[in-house]
């Protein structure tokens, strides 16, 4: 990631996502803002129910946004947009889903699954050209072009996830939202898929929004990480900075809980437990502050003073 002249690819401003109405109203995402730069891998980490998937789904317009705006390459893409823009956004933003067992159509063959997006966006494309693109996409993710005539159940979990990746690649996207792409896979297969994702990023200059709950994977793959809890981002920083100087108590709790494959460090590890009632936000509401260059944290006056003191150490 080049330090200078970073181009902002995606901007999320004050996003709010609400489910239900009236008394059943539930605000899943509360006023979230962040930028994603071109060519980077931006990580969104949080526990189940934190709203991380909802943010991804809201960007790709599966879930409507109740307040706020999303800009892609400077153009607003949420709410009512022109048909031409809709088509171009559909093509340039793709998603990879968590469970490769559930996200592929059981009754369709691989060639249809992979080509479906093309059929919708380029209906004029000839059959031969489409087949050529499908086999290209399949070989790019390390599958044999012959697999096109098979059904999803004939593949292992890792291979299915590759099909899911091929399906999004064929659209030649610029931005891919990967929602827990490796959580459902086996340890030995995870590395294969992670390597594939970073290979594709290098070759095609892709930008990723990587959604996961596993900070150890995040550390390996992400350039910047945002930590989200109950619909609010509590801390955002470059990966190494976040691991070196975690400030928000929730981030610290998450980091302390990462299981490390090292018996010595596990024996001496001290768990930090996050208690949300520790914040006294009634009289002194928290603000989102850039506490040091490119390190943002949520806190009130008193907490921020503590964080600054910790950074100064």
């Amino acid at each position, binding site marked *: 990631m080049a330090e200078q002249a970073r181009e902002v690819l995606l901007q999320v401003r004050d996003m709010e996502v609400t489910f239900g109405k009236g008394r059943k109203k539930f605000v899943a995402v509360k006023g979230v803002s962040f930028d994603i730069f071109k060519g980077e891998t931006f990580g969104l980490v949080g526990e189940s129910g934190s709203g991380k998937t909802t943010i991804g789904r809201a960007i790709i317009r599966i879930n409507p946004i109740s307040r706020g705006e999303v800009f892609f390459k400077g153009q607003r893409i949420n709410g009512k947009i022109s048909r031409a823009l809709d088509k171009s956004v559909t093509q340039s933003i793709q998603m990879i889903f968590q469970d490769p067992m559930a996200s592929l159509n059981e009754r369709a063959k691989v060639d249809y699954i992979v080509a479906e997006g093309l059929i919708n966006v380029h209906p004029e494309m000839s059959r031969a050209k489409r087949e050529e693109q499908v086999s290209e996409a399949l070989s790019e993710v390390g599958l044999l072009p012959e697999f096109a005539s098979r059904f999803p159940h004939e593949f292992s979990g890792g291979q299915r996830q590759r099909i899911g990746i091929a399906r999004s690649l064929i659209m030649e996207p610029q931005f891919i939202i990967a929602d827990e792409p490796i959580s459902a896979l086996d340890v030995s297969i995870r590395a294969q898929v992670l390597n594939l994702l970073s290979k594709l990023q290098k070759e095609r200059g892709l930008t990723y929004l990587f959604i996961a709950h596993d900070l150890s994977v995040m550390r390996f793959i992400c350039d910047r990480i945002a930590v989200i809890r109950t619909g609010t981002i509590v801390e955002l920083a470059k990966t190494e900075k976040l691991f070196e100087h975690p400030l928000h108590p929730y981030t610290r709790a998450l980091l302390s809980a990462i299981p490390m*494959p090292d018996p010595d460090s596990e024996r001496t590890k001290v768990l930090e437990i996050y208690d949300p009632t520790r914040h006294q936000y009634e009289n002194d509401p928290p603000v989102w502050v850039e506490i040091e260059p490119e390190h943002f944290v949520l806190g009130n006056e008193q907490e921020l003073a503590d964080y600054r003191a910790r950074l100064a150490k």
Partner: protein
Amino acid sequence: MENKEIILSVRDLNVKFSLRGKVLHAIRGIGMDLYKGESLAIVGESGSGKSVLTKNFIGLLDNNGWIDSGEILYYGMDPQHPVDLAKLKTDEEWRDIRGKHVAMVMQDPMTSLNPLKTIGWQIGEALKLHQNLRGEAARKKAIDILSDVGIPEPERRYSQYPHEFSGGMRQRVVIAIAMACNPRILVCDEPTTALDVTIQAQILHLIKELKEKYALTTIYITHDLGVVANVADRIAVMYAGDIVEVGCADEVFYDPRHPYTWALLSSLPQLGIKGRDLYSIKGTPPNLFHPNRGDAFAARNPQALKIDFLHRPPYFEISATHKARTWLLDPRAPKVDPPEHIKNIRNIRKNMTGGQCNG
């Protein structure tokens, strides 16, 4: 290994399944000992047979599976006259063992509780069957156990239903039910896979506490090497229905010998270097429908020796507690270096002493 009492001993166990008219050889001649009061972690990919192995200890093998040969000797009832669990067939025969001696915590707390019964009823059921407690006595005991597993306000929680509990709390309830029978051995099958990281750490801590308090012997089944490092005294690495390496936690993590253990450790993102490719294991595990010759991992091992494809390696002892099934340890074998960062781990711990597993 002096003064360590064996509580469970598996001898040359073979388990087969009949699937779509074909026979799948799921456990291929496993031998292992479980010592009293220890915590053993069984690590492996899905399909390596780790769950199948432990299901035999509690008699929950699926209907299409059977023990083809071998013994599972349980010494917990009478150390002089062990019971062979492999011989037990009916539920009546199992009733004395299951729950009272060996209990199991399943992976997914969302599906292992009955949604129609209160938590209190479900714990009470175990108390009634195994400890013959009824009425007020059972209720008191259940509330005791609930507070034991760290559930706040146990009196109120006692009469609630599973849907009123969060995932972590449900897993605590599942553990409470297992503990209600006062087992000697607690098998935890992926106890935290369905849980969040912070909750995972709490549940692992709870199981460790209970283990100390009730002098339990625990078996963890997991694919997460981070969890293993946290909980295990000893580690058994399984691949394709066989234990390929077994040793103390320190030995397996800092001085692994089997190429599969190397590969497994190397592919962890925790040990990866950013910007470089992670080590990844090529290919897929072998098909257990077919008989496997030689070392089952050979086909995926870039450094495999010729003999790996021909003959199955025996166990080679590295220390009194550490052994691995690989021809690399044979004195005649060429010197094959483990991957780079495995060597780094090794250097840090060069002066490690083998032969003792401390808990």
